[in-house]
């Protein structure tokens, strides 16, 4: 139940910088999810917190103590690996008690803690099996059990669900959320799946290219992304991006014109930007309205429509730019139709050519 603080954390392999200065405070009992595309450095950052990768620069504090040079086993952490990393030659019971054995804990105390963890995860019937005799989901539970047994202050999860099938993944997600409530521990969770991030996190940390792009609560990030990258990464389906150009600027508002739809103009309350600047208009799928109900209408060609029952997605084409639409009329639209939708200025986002948010 420790808090963590990362100050100017850097990591480089020779001349290659992988983590380029990360500052982050994590409160005790918080569930923090590191999310980002592959290669963004999220796993490396987690492994640096675990002590598995040397830290090139900066300060790592766990529970108020500087931990940069402390052995992994003395950082008060436990880790759950993507591949589960169960010792193949040991039974579930031995796997779970292995760390305690090397910490010099008495035999009966080990047994007590193992049984306790097995109870929490309903692993009792499996205790004397070998990992190879377990299913993927069971192995994952054992891996989590092995972490619980040690009563760590901080749990680290490295993409723990990515080797499971879709159904099991949903199930384990709920299980992990329950564990977080029950154990009241600090948890740091790495994933590339923004759905996992949205559903599990108290706080999401979006990483790209070794840097933090934005930190915030899930809906904060969804509603109020700091830049085009976060806007595109958080949310499913992805936010739609339409290229545009600023054609007029009066006081605290600008008027833009869609590049692929000459004549289609939209005025937004934006202070920055200059006439002639290339910008990107961002619209979430569910923010398209019926014709005439928004600020401006556009007509698009429909490539395909996916009817999922509870909702329908229309995949339309705006001069080469893919647009996903989800609104009341989606249900009645099919491939090769033409669809007219409206865009509301108050629900639209605007990004400059560098991807920074203008509105």
């Amino acid at each position, binding site marked *: 139940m420790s808090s963590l603080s990362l100050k100017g954390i850097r990591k*480089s392999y020779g001349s290659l910088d992988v983590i380029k200065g990360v500052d982050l405070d994590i409160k005790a009992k918080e569930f923090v999810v590191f999310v980002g595309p592959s290669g963004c450095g999220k796993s490396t950052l987690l492994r640096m917190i675990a*002590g598995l*990768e*040397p*830290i*090139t*620069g900066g300060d790592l504090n766990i529970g108020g103590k500087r931990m*940069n*040079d402390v052995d992994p086993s003395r950082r008060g952490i436990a880790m759950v690996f993507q591949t589960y990393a169960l010792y193949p030659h040991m039974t579930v019971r031995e796997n779970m008690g292995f760390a305690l054995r090397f910490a010099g804990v008495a035999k009966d105390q080990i047994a007590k803690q193992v049984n306790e963890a097995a109870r929490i995860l309903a692993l009792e019937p499996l205790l004397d099996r070998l990992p190879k005799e377990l299913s993927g989901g069971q192995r994952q539970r054992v891996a989590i059990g092995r972490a619980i047994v040690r009563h760590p202050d901080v749990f680290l999860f490295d993409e723990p669900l990515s080797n499971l099938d879709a159904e099991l993944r949903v199930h384990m997600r709920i299980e992990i959320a329950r564990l977080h409530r029950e154990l009241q521990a600090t948890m740091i969770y790495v994933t590339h799946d923004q759905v996992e991030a949205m559903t599990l996190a108290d706080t999401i940390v979006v990483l790209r290219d070794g840097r933090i792009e934005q930190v915030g609560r899930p809906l904060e990030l969804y509603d109020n992304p700091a830049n085009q990258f976060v806007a595109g990464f958080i949310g499913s389906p992805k936010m739609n991006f339409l290229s545009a150009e600023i054609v007029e600027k009066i006081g605290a508002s600008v008027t833009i014109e869609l590049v692929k739809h000459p004549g289609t103009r939209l005025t937004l309350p934006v202070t920055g930007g200059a006439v002639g600047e290339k910008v990107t208009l961002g619209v979430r799928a569910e923010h398209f309205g019926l014709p005439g109900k928004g600020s401006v209408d556009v007509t698009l060609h429909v490539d395909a429509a996916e009817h999922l029952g509870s909702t329908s997605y229309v995949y339309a084409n705006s001069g080469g730019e893919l647009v996903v639409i989800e609104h009341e009329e989606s249900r009645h639209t099919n491939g090769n139709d033409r669809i007219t939708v409206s865009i509301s200025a108050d629900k639209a986002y605007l990004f400059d050519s560098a991807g920074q948010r203008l509105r």
Partner: protein
Amino acid sequence: MATTRLHRNEQINGWAFVMPALVLLGIFMIYPILWSLWMSFQVGRGNNFSFGGLANIQRLANDALLVHALSNTIIFFIIQVPIMIVLALLFAVALNDATLRFRGVFRTLLFLPCVTSLIAYSSLFKSMFSNDGIINQTLVSLHLIGAPIPWLTDPFWAKMVIITAITWRWTGYNMIFYLAALQNIDKSIYEAARIDGVPAWARFWNLTVPMLKPVILFTTILSTIGTLQLFDEVNNITQGGPGNGTMTLSLYIYNLTFRMMPSFGYSALVSWVIVAIVAVLSIVQFVIARDRRRAS
């Protein structure tokens, strides 16, 4: 870059794990190699030697027996290694077929020769290939030959016996390497090729062989070293005879050192000849392998 304790630990552990091996290799491999380089310039008998300048090299230039040993070794190498590797490949491909019955039995039987010691099987072959022995008797009774073949008393046939013996002993060993490599190849590649109508021989030449190339190269190098090491068989079946017809480099060095007038300096120089040959052959093999890759 600041060296962290974690980083330093990795370094210390890294050296600690490899150190015992490195120390032993230093004493029993690197030191002898350097020592024999120095020894190559010494003349004299046994442990009494003195600096002889280029005397050994002059002796090397006029050594007919060395040329003989060298050419024998090359003959063994050129004939035996390709035969063995092709056989091993064919067996491995045949045994890799999951629909083949008794594959486990075949695999075990073909590997069996490898468990024999070189000396034990040499003695077996010597007895089997004797003048009135089982091989000649069988061949004569099958009317394949009119008169017994002088296996061990004719230089040509003696070479054939050695080649047969080595092939018998090592084919299964190489086969296991190929079999292991074959099992790592994705079966769907072959299924795709069959659907595309690629005939069996083309699947072998254009799929199997290229995919096994690293292993083939590896076993070829091992076999090359093996041929240059050739000692146990020739020393026990033919003693290098008849008429030095099966004399090999290893046996020649052994004779120079322990049988004839012991001349450590000269045998050290001959050892370096072997090292040079191995170096050249290894380079050639790597270059060939690389050119093939480029060509394909």
